[in-house]
């Protein structure tokens, strides 16, 4: 008997083979990406709303990458500082000639405008900061800030949620109470206060609002991933991995997290837009980056004193506003599409 145990089994003759189904052919993409990823990928590139969203995001990414080609930096050492055409308070309308501190001419300038001097493409805002320059370089800020804050928030959320759910018991209890405490703060107020406190300590720049938004932004990820890990942890395939002798880290990293992470990633993609809005809101309130830093929120904030006469000086809010709205819209459309693709109720219709 024990000898039989050692030998490799031989296919039994009467294995009761089910009629051999012909499986659908897989294309190369599907094989490389795996089923879930391929499904998401296909969903994203076929859903019309997410095509719009992806195109918007792609557009902003390209602007951010080629910012220096679109508008060469005015001061090469500090490209994020928006050049100002004098110090007058009254905004200049689009098309006004750029007299002082104009950046070098970009390669496309003559071909498209037919002029051989800079003018203020989208006008200037109060203080003579050039709006076009601010928007182009502000795209970089938006993407860097969005990705940076989102990445840090997600990391903290995932670590706290994973530790809480994996260890359970009082660890879970303490971490979740801690999370609830943070959720009790009104988000923008808390972030505003913290970033106001941090600014004199670490100086103006993108860091005070970044830290503040991260500190008060991770909770929803922690809770979401915790819930998903708790439910995945009880699934039979996790027990099956333990049965074959897999250790804790293998179970966590190759079975639990890969199965639990998608909803959290979807939420994160939807939140990038919101994060950039919050960052802009802090800038608008005068907290965060130094005055004149290329940042959409700050551009809008220059319009503060002109609110009663905005119908006359419309360009100072319309252009930065459009940039911000399209950016947020892009991420939301993609996030919505991802959520629909991931929705287990809709899933049955996609797959058997």
């Amino acid at each position, binding site marked *: 008997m024990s000898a039989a145990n050692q030998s490799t089994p031989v296919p039994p003759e009467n*294995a009761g083979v089910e009629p051999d189904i012909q499986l659908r052919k897989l294309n190369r993409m599907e094989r490389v990406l795996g089923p879930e990823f391929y499904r998401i990928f296909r969903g994203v590139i076929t859903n019309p709303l997410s095509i719009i969203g992806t195109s918007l995001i792609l557009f902003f990414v390209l602007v951010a990458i080629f910012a220096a080609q679109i508008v060469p930096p005015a001061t090469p050492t500090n490209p994020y500082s928006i050049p100002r055409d004098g110090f007058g308070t009254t905004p200049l309308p689009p098309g006004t000639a750029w007299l002082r501190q104009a950046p070098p001419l970009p390669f496309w300038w003559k071909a498209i405008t037919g002029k051989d001097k800079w003018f203020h493409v989208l006008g200037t805002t109060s203080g003579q900061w050039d709006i076009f320059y601010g928007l182009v370089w502000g795209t970089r800020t938006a993407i860097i800030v969005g990705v940076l804050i989102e990445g840090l928030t997600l990391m903290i959320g995932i670590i706290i949620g994973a530790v809480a759910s994996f260890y359970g018991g009082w660890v879970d209890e303490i971490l979740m109470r801690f999370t609830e405490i943070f959720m009790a703060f009104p988000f923008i107020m808390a972030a505003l206060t913290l970033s106001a406190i941090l600014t004199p300590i670490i100086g103006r720049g993108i860091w005070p609002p970044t830290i503040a938004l991260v500190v008060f932004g991770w909770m929803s990820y922690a809770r979401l991933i915790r819930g998903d890990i708790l439910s995945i942890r009880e699934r039979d395939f996790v027990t099956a991995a333990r049965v074959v*002798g*897999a250790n804790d880290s293998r179970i966590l990293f190759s079975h639990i997290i890969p199965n639990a992470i998608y909803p959290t990633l979807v939420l994160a993609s939807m939140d990038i837009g919101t994060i950039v809005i919050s960052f802009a809101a802090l800038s608008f309130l005068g907290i965060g980056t130094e005055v004149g830093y290329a940042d959409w929120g700050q551009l809008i904030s220059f319009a503060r004193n002109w609110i009663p006469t905005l119908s006359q000086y419309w360009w100072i809010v319309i252009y930065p506003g459009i940039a911000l709205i399209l950016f947020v819209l892009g991420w939301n459309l993609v996030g919505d599409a991802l959520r629909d693709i991931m929705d287990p109720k809709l899933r049955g219709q996609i797959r058997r």
Partner: protein
Amino acid sequence: MSMQTTTETVRSPDVLLRVEGLKMHFPVYRGVFRSRVGEIKAVDGITFDILRGETLGLVGESGCGKSTAGRTILQLYRPTAGSVYLDGEDLSTLHGEKLRQHRRKMQMIFQDPYASLDPRMTIGEIVGEPLDVHQTARGKGRRERIAHLLQVVGLNPLYAGRYPHEFSGGQRQRVGIARALALNPSFIVCDEPISALDVSIQAQVVNLLEDIQKEMGLTYLFIAHDLSMVRHISTRVAVMYLGKLMELSDRSEVYVDPLHPYTQSLLSAIPIPDPVLEERRKRIILTGDVPSPANPPSGCVFHTRCPYAEAICGETIPAWREIHSGHWVACHFAERFKK
């Protein structure tokens, strides 16, 4: 005939697995301070042997602790009390790496073929995971072993790169079986492996399990929720109720001459194809619900539903005794029910 052979084995027992007084109580916590307010006695002191090469059917209503028993035997839950000896070694005293090494010898097949395969792994990766974890095969050897295992369970090895969702329930169950076989185990807990499958597929999977058992000399603990399911495959049958064993005996005796009122009631629920027998037999129809395992009845746990219960049944726990060779029962009055 089977009577003859099993009495043989009982007389010269070659015990593979010995379970002694096994208990698994799940604590119940309540409130902010997570104080322990009680426990669910999912498995409450069970004792039996499984002989090498046999199939022990474990039967009982939903919630009586069958799965918990199987999982505690495999040390997926650490037992509250009692021991599990596999090949003479007490698994309940092993920890960490040592226990992990022993997992090669004992495997499990799950009830739900959809939940038991990681949807993000190909079936090749799933079947190969035991090999990776124990580093028994690498590279070409690993691929060949996976292909071989898939063949053994009647799947085309060309499908190793496919994901579970592309397969039917029966085929997924075969993948689960291939995974269980990967390490050449000697003992497999089959936790209702066919309950979730279409009736037409059930027989195929049972046949496959039997064929593999013969080929590899496997020993099964085969869990099912009614007696008709294990009739075909089992060598012996154990009946469980509220965390305790009620009766254990050779298959032929359990179905023909059950000595425990609970076993009799389970048999009453199975229709007999023969109208004469069907007419003659005495039916016991159970009334009432299964009591909660958090608060099991005193004395004989079955006394709240037993038609033969007497005063002593509510007071004294009936002993788990071998009423005659190879026939174990836990009832004060088992002798009365003998034919």
